[in-house]
């Protein structure tokens, strides 16, 4: 289980909890503080992205569009992890190419179940 997952959130404490959950399960983790930072760190060995929605510099929707615009990452799973729960925003994420939507707060076992499911 050496897959690499990127966690994107402007909150350092959320990134810390996501990273702790994933590393405990054996995943490698790359952290980014917003969409712009994430795109700059997106490399060939990233297998999945978990991103917040509302972030400075570049939000989650634009990040997804940026990821999907790159051929190498067109199909990697990108899951939103956000406090946002409006149906409209969810649809917007889905249209942009999101793979799934998790509303905070998450439980570690839930996050890992999602990762296992989408990384199959």
């Amino acid at each position, binding site marked *: 289980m050496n897959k690499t997952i990127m966690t994107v959130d402007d909150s350092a*404490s959320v990134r810390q909890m996501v990273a702790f959950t994933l590393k405990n399960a054996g995943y490698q983790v790359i952290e980014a503080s917003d969409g712009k930072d994430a795109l700059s760190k997106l490399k060939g060995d990233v297998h999945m992205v978990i991103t917040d929605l509302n972030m400075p510099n570049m939000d989650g929707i634009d990040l997804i569009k940026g990821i999907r615009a790159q051929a190498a990452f067109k199909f990697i799973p990108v899951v939103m992890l956000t*406090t946002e729960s409006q149906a409209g925003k969810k649809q917007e994420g889905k249209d942009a190419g999101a793979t799934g939507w998790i*509303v905070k707060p*998450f439980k570690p076992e839930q996050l890992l179940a999602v990762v296992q499911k989408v990384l199959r």
Partner: protein
Amino acid sequence: MLLLTKSWLGLPFSPGWVRSGSNRGLFGNTVLREMVREGMANPPVAVEQETQVALDCAHGLEAFGRAVVGEFSAKEKDFLRLGALLAQFSDEAMAVSRQAAELTSLTSGETVQETTSLLSENLKRLRSGNAGQDNMDELVELEAIASVGGKLTEIIREFSRLVKHLSMLGIATRIESARLGSSGMGFATLSDDVEKLALKIVSASENILHRAHELTVQTKAAGESLRAIHAAQKGSSLATMEQLHLDLHALEQLSRKSRESAGEISGLAQIVGSSVSEAVHSMQFHDIIRQQLEHVDEATSEVRTQVLDLPDDERLDPDEVLDVVAWMHGVLSLQRSQLGNARARFAEAMQDLDESLRTVASQVEQMADMAGSLGAQGANGVLSQIENGVAGVAASLREQVSLGGKMATVMKDVADSIREMSTSVFEIEEVGSEIELIAINASIKAAHTGEEGKALGVLASAIQKLSVDARTHTEQVLELLKSVDQSSEALHSASVSHSSSEAAEPVIAELLGETEQLKDLDTLVAARAEALRRAAGTLNGEILNAVESLEFRHPLIDAMAMGEARLHELVDQVGPYVQQAKGGRHSAKLKEMLKRYTMEAERLVHENVLGGGVASLEAAHAGDTAVSDDPDGLGDNIELF
């Protein structure tokens, strides 16, 4: 009113009228002032009051949101510290769990299984060995030997009498041969020969008597030894078997307890995992509540800006003022509830975090106690008891071997005595035969001598008879010795088997080997238990320190409570001046705010307040998670597209 009068009179305005960035009051409207002076218009008192209240409220909101949000955001470093500690605690707790599980596998593992099996085998062996032994037979054999001593003494007395007779006959023969003179010369020799042979019988008899006496002493000593051996065997065998039985039971209990403990430790480890999971859930509320506070800040800042942006001249529309005042009242009421909701959710999350950490600490302590009890040191420790028991068994077996050896030595001496006696008896037998031969020759010679030799003939016959008697007695003695010999042989074989180390030594070696292994296991288990206790103790201390450090949450909660109270004051301040806006416009605007919320919890608070109810925590929580129908079975806050 007084202020209004002053201003109307053109007197300097009081500070209460000063707006930010402007020195002009509402009566900066010169046209209106003229109209009032001419009596053509009334001073617009009500609108000014509402405006003032709104302005006061707006000033009261200055830096309000920033203070609450700022203080909250500044605590991120504390959350990051806690997050790092949580990861550390999780790793250390799992390590304690692993160590505890390893400890239980040691105390239920291969060494213990082997020892149980060995003890069980030896128990069976001892039981069957004890059943085979017929200790009473050995004593009976010994008593048979002891009784021979007495009987021999009787028979040897007969030999004494016989020898006395022979002596008397010898004297009589000498006298008769002297009376006969030259015809009786050969008979004197006969007498001498018989006397010499009689002396041999005396010597041999004395030897037999001496040996018989020795035999009595030896059998007495052997009897004592045998009783001691039997007592020791019985005692040690019974004690050994009981001890082995107890040891076996203790081992089986240890194994069973270890397996149970392993299961329980696994359960405790799962609880630790769940508690860590709950802690991760709680830690996210720093970000969630920060967002909620930012929304409160945004809303209060917006309404403050709206009030401060009201024109301060003739462009001011009274209706607009009323609208703004009502809007301000609505927004502040809502934000008061949002702040209250944020405070309650944050307090609950921190309480949950506190409890989760304490649960981890208590489960870790339980795991360490459970596993540690398996490795209790000292005399009360199960492994120590077993080790002592096994050493006792080995010592008992060695004692039996030693006692058997002593017995074997005694029986060897008995056999030697019997051999010596047999030799003496054969000597007497030979002597008897010689005497008989001499007597027969004498009888023949006496017959040839005629009438004169008649007395000698009688003497010769008497001597012959004595020799026959002697032969009879020797046969009796030989019979006795034969029976004794058989008993002696049986006892010797028994003592050899008691003392035989061939059967005992391998058992002893096995038991001592197992004792060494148990000792090593005991030391290893004790060391691991101690290390486990220390690790658990250290971890518990660290967790409790982290729990204590959660005190930083109280100033945050208090700040939110103060903010709530402040908004409450402002709402009360504005409240009396609220009039329903025309057409319910501000209600519609308030409802529009709903779309700006990101969290379901915020929307629920909003709807509860607009509906007249107090935002409930439960409603907020329901809003937190019920985002989807959980089509993927991953939770109702998750949806996969």
